[in-house]
């Protein structure tokens, strides 16, 4: 470093300052949300709360945890995340595995058939009509079945399967294993990192589901957390007339809103360090192949 040109040094210093600043713009909004969720409403209204709670209070969290409808929405989200991701993984691997095998005649055609759906997507209304025809409207299945397989994740998983040496499959077959046994006892255990990668992508999608619920659910008792959160973020009285943000009306609800934001975010943040080990690898394989 010592012998480098001064312009290089200047660049490096600016670069470190810029990157640190960028990270702060990612972090500080969270600190602001956390601080507000623990601050007295008068302090929030005055604009006194920056990154540290003022007039510390747990009132908003008390309100959130006392609200049965928030608990129910939380339960729905956990349910579609757990059950939905299980469906995702079973459906995706049961298509990705056969397509990863050279013995599957016509796999190129099926791959094309799948890839085409990434380019041609059907408009919303025909999708909605289909959901009506098969009676999925107003059921939680509407949030899980139509998104059972993502073409991108299927390609990721297939690429992982293809990396496993075929000699392993051959020797298992000589030992008398059937195809199902090979998949269940050999391929899936060997692909745990791949399943984890794809599972993470799916569970984040399932946890964040909002649009599908808006399209396919009318029954409020089925609303997942994101829809409930959205309702709390806009003024309740104005829900039916439009989407006025809460600013227009009273400010005292802001603390509650920040508390709910955190309740919906914390599970993802807790998973994040674990997730990070996998998602980069998954991103790469997916993008290289597509």
């Amino acid at each position, binding site marked *: 470093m010592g012998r480098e040109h001064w312009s290089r040094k200047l660049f*490096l210093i600016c*670069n*470190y300052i*810029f*990157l640190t600043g*960028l990270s702060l713009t990612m*972090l500080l*909004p969270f600190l*602001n*949300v956390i601080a*507000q969720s623990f601050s007295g409403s008068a302090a929030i*209204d005055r*604009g006194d709360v*920056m990154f540290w709670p003022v007039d510390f209070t747990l009132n908003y969290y008390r309100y959130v945890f006392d609200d049965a409808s928030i608990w129910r929405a939380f339960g729905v989200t956990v349910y579609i995340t757990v059950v939905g991701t299980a469906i995702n993984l079973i*459906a*995706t691997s*049961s*298509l990705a595995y*056969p*397509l990863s*095998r050279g*013995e*599957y005649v016509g796999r190129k055609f099926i791959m094309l*058939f799948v890839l085409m*759906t990434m*380019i*041609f*997507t*059907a*408009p*919303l*209304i*025909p*999708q*909605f*009509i*289909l959901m*009506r025809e098969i009676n999925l409207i107003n059921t939680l299945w509407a949030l899980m079945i139509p998104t*059972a*397989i993502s073409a991108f994740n*299927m390609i990721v998983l297939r690429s992982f399967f293809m990396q496993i040496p075929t000699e392993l499959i051959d020797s298992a077959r000589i030992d008398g294993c059937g*195809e199902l046994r090979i998949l269940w006892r050999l391929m899936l255990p060997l692909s745990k990192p791949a399943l984890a990668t794809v599972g993470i992508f799916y569970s984040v999608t399932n*946890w*964040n589901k*909002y*649009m599908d619920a808006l399209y396919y659910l009318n029954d409020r008792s089925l609303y997942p957390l*994101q829809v409930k959160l959205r309702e709390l*973020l806009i003024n309740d009285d104005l829900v039916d007339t439009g*989407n006025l*943000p809460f600013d227009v009306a009273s*400010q005292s609800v*802001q603390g509650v*809103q*920040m508390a709910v*934001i955190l309740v*919906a*975010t914390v599970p*993802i943040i807790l998973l*994040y360090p674990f997730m990070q080990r996998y998602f980069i690898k998954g991103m*790469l394989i997916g993008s290289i192949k597509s």
Partner: protein
Amino acid sequence: MWKYRTLYLISIPGIVYFLVFKYVPLLGSVIAFQNYNLFAGFGGSPWVGFEHFERMFSHYDFLRILKNTLLLGAYDILFAFTAPIVLALLLNEVRLTLYKKLIQTIVYAPHFLSWVIISGIFVGMLSPSSGIANVILGWFGIDPIYFLGEDSYIRAILVGSGLWRDVGWGTIIYLAALTGINPELYEASEIDGAGRWKQTLKITLPALLPVITVLFLLKIGDFMDYGFERVFVFQNPLNIQNSEILDTYIYKAGLKQLQYSYATAIGLFKSVVGLILLVMANSLSRKATGESLY
């Protein structure tokens, strides 16, 4: 084939899934040419040709909404597409591994938040009375601005929040491509007296070009799909003039006002324009750089 019947058997549910949930609705788009009635169905609804498309183009609102969609798509390419390339290049200059890892961990994180949460955070920060943005403006004696209540700010907010969420995530693939560059190239150019800036122009960027091209083509293919959620969660009656895009309009016209055929016609128009853009960009790119998607 009979020997591997189990393989075929377990692939059937997946194939059926794509047929039913992706191809059937695609065929169902024919209702754009009908006056579709839920009770009469595809068979019983009368055919009307291009009536819905004509109505679409003659509608004053439609042109405004199309303009919003195209503008946001253009801003997205200008900022959201280029920013990750720049950020990846900057991250690549960092030699302190621990610092680099820490920065990466932080900038990837917002990608995992839902748009609802992101809108919540931004609406909070931009609030006229208590939002941190206006508190800071207040230090400089500037009166509070109701950012989300005016048409003039909404595009910047949409593009900005998108950048905030995805700029870090977008760097992953470029950083991977950067590690694939042969270090000998840099050593050789150093002997020739090339500085870091020259190296970036002559070695790094050309090495990234194939990845940039492919991602650019994919982005062009998505040009009209700015995304329903990210816009919908920021919309309110005060900023709707500039924030209504085709996707949000389709939802309102189709599912709220039950104009099924009209909304499908708009959706079909959107898909066709997207496809034409993709095909054009692909052939242009093949001629210019030799890189193409297909």
